[in-house]
């Protein structure tokens, strides 16, 4: 295809991606380097026979002028990254010096929002992903063993948790585990403890969010593995059976190696999706015990009276950096494959 035709065909697509994905990433970076202007304050002294009084007022005109001159705010360098909302370098140094044990140190660090959010996001990502892979594979094996008639309805039912909007899906579960909801109330009865609440305990909140994550994403890995199972070569299975391999051995040595590329694909998608976990935290109102990076950015933008663009920007850049690290192995691999293919 000629360069010019290619450009014409791809122009709409490339320009929206450039305008609304590439440029925002750059602008987020610039945003993170600046800080809001301080209001210009006028201090005036009023003297009368009874003495002098100083009053302070905001000079709106001067503030507006300042804002017009530099709409992004004052240049702040990387200070936003190192403040206590983010990496909190000074505070960590202090915590290190003042803590007598490593655990005390870790507990202190956990109080800073970024570390809190990072620890949940990473735990969530690295717990949910393997569970989803493993359980999805088991369900796929199970469905593959079902009579043909049942397969269609099973797939239909399995798709629902994934298709349903994350916010809505997690709300549905949230209402059920509520102290008065069906699961919550039943659990209280089983443990004979009327104050048992999944929402009040940090550990149970984390578990609840992760169970939701597994429930939500398992259909995806199930469907992909199930499709992969249909392509396992029949001859190899038969040959293994003739050689005396048991069902387990056949699965272990024939089926799993065959599905390996799929597992890598699923892992990649799951890592990307789990890392941006956000909606369940809103639905479960879990922010007291669990926050994610996306939630942190949302909070910077939304919760305070003035959006903290610099804080949101810095958190976003840190997020992008983490995503880059997650993706790096895949990118290197693809690059190698591509080069080999071109050589061959």
């Amino acid at each position: 295809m000629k360069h010019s035709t290619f450009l014409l065909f791809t122009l709409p697509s490339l320009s929206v991606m450039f305008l609304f994905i590439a440029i925002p990433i750059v602008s987020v970076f610039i945003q993170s380097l600046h800080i809001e202007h301080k209001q210009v304050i006028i201090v005036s002294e009023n003297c009368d026979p009874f003495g002098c009084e100083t009053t302070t007022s905001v000079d709106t005109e001067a503030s507006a002028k300042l804002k017009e001159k530099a709409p992004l705010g004052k240049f702040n360098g990387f200070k936003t990254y190192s403040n206590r909302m983010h990496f909190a370098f000074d505070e960590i140094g202090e915590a290190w010096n003042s803590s007598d044990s490593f655990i005390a140190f870790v507990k202190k660090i956990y109080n800073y929002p970024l570390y809190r959010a990072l620890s949940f996001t990473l735990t969530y990502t690295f717990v949910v992903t393997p569970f989803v892979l493993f359980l999805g594979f088991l369900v796929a094996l199970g469905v593959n063993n079902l009579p043909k008639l049942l397969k269609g309805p099973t797939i239909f039912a399995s798709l629902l948790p994934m298709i349903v909007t994350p916010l809505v899906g997690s709300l549905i579960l949230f209402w059920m585990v509520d102290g008065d909801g069906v699961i919550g109330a039943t659990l209280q009865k089983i443990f004979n403890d009327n104050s048992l609440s999944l929402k009040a305990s940090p550990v149970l909140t984390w578990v609840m969010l992760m169970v939701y994550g597994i429930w939500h994403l398992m259909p995806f890995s199930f469907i992909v593995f199930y499709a992969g199972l249909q392509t396992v070569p029949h001859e190899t299975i038969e040959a293994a059976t003739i050689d005396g391999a048991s069902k387990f051995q056949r699965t272990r040595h024939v089926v799993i190696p065959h599905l390996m590329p799929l597992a890598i694909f699923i892992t990649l998608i799951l890592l990307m999706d789990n890392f941006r976990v956000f909606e369940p935290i809103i639905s479960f109102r879990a922010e007291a015990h669990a926050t994610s990076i996306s939630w942190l950015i949302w909070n910077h933008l939304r919760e305070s009276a003035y959006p903290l663009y610099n804080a949101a920007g810095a958190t976003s850049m840190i997020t992008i950096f983490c995503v880059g690290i997650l993706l790096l192995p895949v990118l290197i691999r693809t690059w190698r494959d591509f080069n080999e293919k071109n050589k061959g």
Partner: protein
Amino acid sequence: MNTKIENKLTPVRIIAFVFVALWLIVAMFPFIWTLWGSFKVQADFFSKADWANAIFGFHTEKQTGNFFTIDGYYGSWIEEEFWRAVINTSIVVFFTVLISLTFGTLGGYALARSTYRYAFWILMAGLIFRAMPHMTLVSGYLQPFFAWNVWGILPTTIIVLVAINQPFTLWMLHSFFLNIPKDLDESAMCDGCNRFQAFRYVIIPIMWPGVITTGLFSFLLAYNDFTVTSMLLSDENETMIPAIASFLGTVQEEGKVMYAVAAVVSATAPLFFLVMFFQRQIVSGLTAGAVKG
């Protein structure tokens, strides 16, 4: 002979059967429970004393005279004006899907047919863009959108959703067009068509299966989005999902949780039918990317 083996009931098969049955309960029960409960009053749906109340509607019968009530639906759709959100969602979803597919088919086709190295780089960039958490992008939109005075209106949200959707659409349609033999459009070009004519008269008539599959996923992305719509739309332009989220804030205190439950069921119903009618396409779409690697 083969079928005989397949139908034999071995322990492994029984375990598999039980396991799948368990999963089905886990997958389906929350939806059935909420759907049924949405026609009850709050005292039944959140019944601490006895969960059976939610099934038989003990309090519902006491309060409304019937074990079945549509108060929640009336409250959310009419009183809280959920219908506005439904209209907004329809507009956003319709235009997002339409524009995504138009841009995506053109771009995906070109990427599938180009033999140059930059096509690969564009796809790689797409993969990286696909991985960006949407929240990071949204934090970059707010300042310029406020400055240009385009914040809060539907077209802005639509174009942003199109952009966020583009990497995935491109990948999917690219792999779909790779499956359409090159010879088709090339022979058309030998017969004197230019590239656009070949695309128009040869490719467009046969591309619909792939486009429909991709369209389903664009639909889901736009329909399910909360990050973009909650940050970029003003209150009167709110779509369904942020509307449900803001319901939670206002409704919970007033004892009107059932409004939110009804809204949640209303938002889930279209997806239910979508899966019912397009199950095959969704499954093939999920696996398309995977099987090609």
